[in-house]
């Protein structure tokens, strides 16, 4: 174990040599270092991104021709359900979490997050929960009622077996991970900022992490309750969503979307934060209208709680409900627009450096505008009556989530890969990746606007010949295959660059924020000497930082010790879930026992030993 291998100084405290880590699996399993935790989030997130992508390719291949019998309806239902669930909960959110983890402490000049062990706990709960959810494929089939699981399709009457139980329990576990992480980042950002870094001097990515964290802690409880109601219906026979007993299936929809709409902003805001860092850096110009970009982020989050029923325009909310939610949905376009204008104004008159991160950032802006336009079209309840549940919505969501969020995340990956690994990603391969992805993405999803307008419904495993859907579907399928290929190009870039990439140095891009003041990859403790800041762009200020944050003469900082308890506690939770899905009380109790022991073990273990 790494602690016993490390040397001891005369004070009897363990010292870890600068920049070097103990290797080995054990050190990764017990790490509480935000950087390692971030890397693990990224690796697992990318793995599940590929899994979700495979599910998408199967869907597209099935839809490439009319009345295809390649994939039967049952498997198709599992594929679109798991594609959505995987991409939202197991790919995009953890990828954002990877960035929160690695970058936020660096950006605020801290040595780690406020609660390092809680951070490790969030990671392990996510990992175990993700595999628990996907194990359903081996145990009777994956969840198959859509990523939004509408009642009462999810009742035991219409969904017998354990597929939905896997879904309910899997999401509950993932919820625990997200809430714990969000609480951690809220405290970290409030309390661990470098001296001089007021809230209005924080990097935009940290700001968006902060706002996203509030969305997480407020939105997840709603779906937690919805899932509990569903679980009680399925396990104990309660009547929450049983119309025959007076239950209202719409209660599920409301609770789900009270979570679900803020959830899409949880997916989006970190990406907006990344773009707000990349554009100034590659325009060599501070972000135009910083306060407006901050306030618009906060406003999007707040308004995001007031639009949820726009996912329910076809259920019969009544004229007042429809009108109110149409109005709030139209309103929310405004702060988003403000951000776009600020980014463009930042580039205007700037000295543009045409590197891959900027390509993805500009690509993001263009694709997100298109997605936003289709979104505004949805905001009219009347128009949405035709669009809802059609491929028009599929086009919209993929323009904002792929053309938007994924492009932004790739921008972040190209931007911060040098910091994380110490190597530069190849510009040549990166630009090839970008162009191929941009073209393939549009080829895949633009035709879907047409399909939706002409009445092709969502979530159906095939369509009849002669309805006029063939050409657009074929185009979309071809696009998706090329899109998949472009991801392979990216993977090649990563593997190639890790081996043969140019050495990055601390600041390859000439960045403004604190993460660029330290080595790439950063030493274990991040900053040897704590920085102080006096402006929003500390590295661009006159004379740069006033202290040498890497001063080797300064004493080496003492960091929290590794711990196994977070992993054990996470494991206990999953054992409870396994027992629940198998309806085996002894296993549930065993898991609960592990949970209790782990809580006490953790509570009584000193943070630093």
């Amino acid at each position: 174990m790494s602690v016993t291998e490390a040397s001891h100084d005369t004070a009897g405290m363990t010292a870890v040599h600068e920049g070097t880590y103990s290797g080995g699996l054990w050190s990764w399993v017990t790490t509480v270092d935000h950087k390692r935790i971030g890397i693990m989030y990224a690796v697992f997130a990318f793995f599940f991104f590929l899994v979700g992508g495979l599910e998408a390719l199967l869907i597209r291949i099935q839809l490439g021709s009319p009345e295809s019998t390649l994939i039967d309806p049952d498997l198709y239902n599992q594929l679109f359900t798991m594609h959505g669930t995987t991409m939202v909960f197991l790919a995009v959110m953890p990828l954002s979490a990877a960035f929160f983890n690695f970058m936020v402490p660096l950006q605020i000049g801290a040595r780690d997050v406020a609660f390092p062990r809680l951070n490790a706990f969030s990671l392990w709960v996510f990992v175990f929960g993700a595999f628990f959810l996907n194990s359903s494929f081996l145990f009777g089939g994956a969840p198959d009622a859509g990523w939004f699981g509408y009642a009462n399709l999810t009742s035991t009457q219409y969904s017998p077996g354990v597929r939905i139980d896997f879904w309910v329990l899997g999401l509950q576990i993932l919820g625990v991970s997200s809430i714990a992480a969000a609480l951690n980042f809220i405290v970290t950002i409030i309390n661990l900022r470098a001296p001089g870094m007021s809230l209005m001097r924080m990097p935009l990515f940290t700001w968006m992490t902060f706002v996203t964290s509030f969305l997480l802690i407020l939105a997840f409880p709603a779906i937690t309750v919805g899932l509990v109601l569903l679980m009680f219906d399925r396990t104990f026979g309660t009547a929450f969503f049983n119309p025959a007993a007076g239950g209202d299936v719409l209660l599920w929809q409301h609770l789900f979307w009270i979570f679900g709409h803020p959830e899409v902003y949880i997916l989006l805001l970190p990406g907006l934060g990344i773009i707000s860092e990349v554009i100034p850096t590659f325009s060599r110009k501070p972000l135009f209208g910083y306060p407006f970009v901050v306030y618009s982020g906060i406003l999007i989050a707040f308004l995001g709680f007031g639009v949820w029923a726009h996912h329910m325009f076809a259920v019969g909310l009544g004229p007042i409900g429809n009108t109110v939610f149409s109005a709030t949905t139209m309103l929310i376009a405004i702060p988003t627009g403000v951000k776009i204008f600020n980014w463009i104004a930042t580039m205007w008159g700037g000295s543009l450096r045409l590197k891959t991160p900027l390509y993805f950032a500009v690509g993001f802006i263009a694709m997100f505008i298109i997605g936003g336009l289709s979104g505004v079209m949805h905001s009219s309840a009347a128009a949405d009556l035709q669009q809802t549940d059609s491929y028009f919505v599929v086009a919209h969501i993929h323009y904002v989530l792929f053309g938007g969020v994924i492009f932004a995340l790739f921008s972040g990956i190209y931007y911060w890969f040098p910091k994380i690994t110490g190597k530069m990603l190849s510009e040549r391969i990166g630009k090839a990746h970008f162009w191929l992805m941009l073209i393939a993405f549009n080829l895949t999803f633009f035709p879907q606007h047409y399909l939706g307008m002409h009445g092709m419904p969502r979530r159906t495993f095939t369509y009849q010949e002669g309805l006029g859907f063939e050409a657009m579907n074929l185009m979309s399928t071809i696009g998706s295959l090329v899109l998949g290929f472009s991801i392979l190009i990216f993977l090649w870039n990563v593997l190639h660059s890790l081996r043969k990439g140019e050495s990055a140095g601390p600041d390859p891009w000439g960045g403004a924020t604190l993460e660029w003041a330290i080595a790439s990859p950063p030493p274990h403790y991040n900053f040897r000497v704590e920085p102080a800041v006096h402006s929003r762009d500390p590295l661009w200020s006159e004379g740069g930082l006033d202290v040498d944050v890497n001063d080797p003469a300064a004493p080496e900082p003492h960091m929290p010790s590794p711990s196994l308890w977070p992993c054990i506690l996470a494991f206990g939770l999953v054992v409870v879930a396994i027992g629940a899905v198998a309806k085996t009380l002894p296993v549930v109790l065993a898991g609960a026992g592990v949970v209790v022991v782990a809580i006490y073990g953790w509570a009584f273990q000193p943070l630093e030993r």
Partner: protein
Amino acid sequence: MENSVTEHDHASVKTYLVVAAVLGIITAVEVAIFYIDALRPVLVPLLLTLSAAKFTLVVSFFMHLKYDSKIFRGLFVGPLAVAVLIILAMLALFGVFGGGGGAA
């Protein structure tokens, strides 16, 4: 910025006892009102006000929010406001306030 902990203002034990007594009295009043038929028409607003008062007393004094940093107040009141607004919106959507509800 470092030592801005506001532990100067402090509720005394006497204050806690007074607050506890007030909480007890309000509870007794709430129950009494429940049984007084003449107050039926204003029962709901009256009870909501009284329990809001108890809520505020516990949060302000026992949870020390009155004397503590505004940051804690923000962390509590913000989410509370979001929760209350969503509850009210849902009640309206489900017709609990009479009229409008088409959600069922």
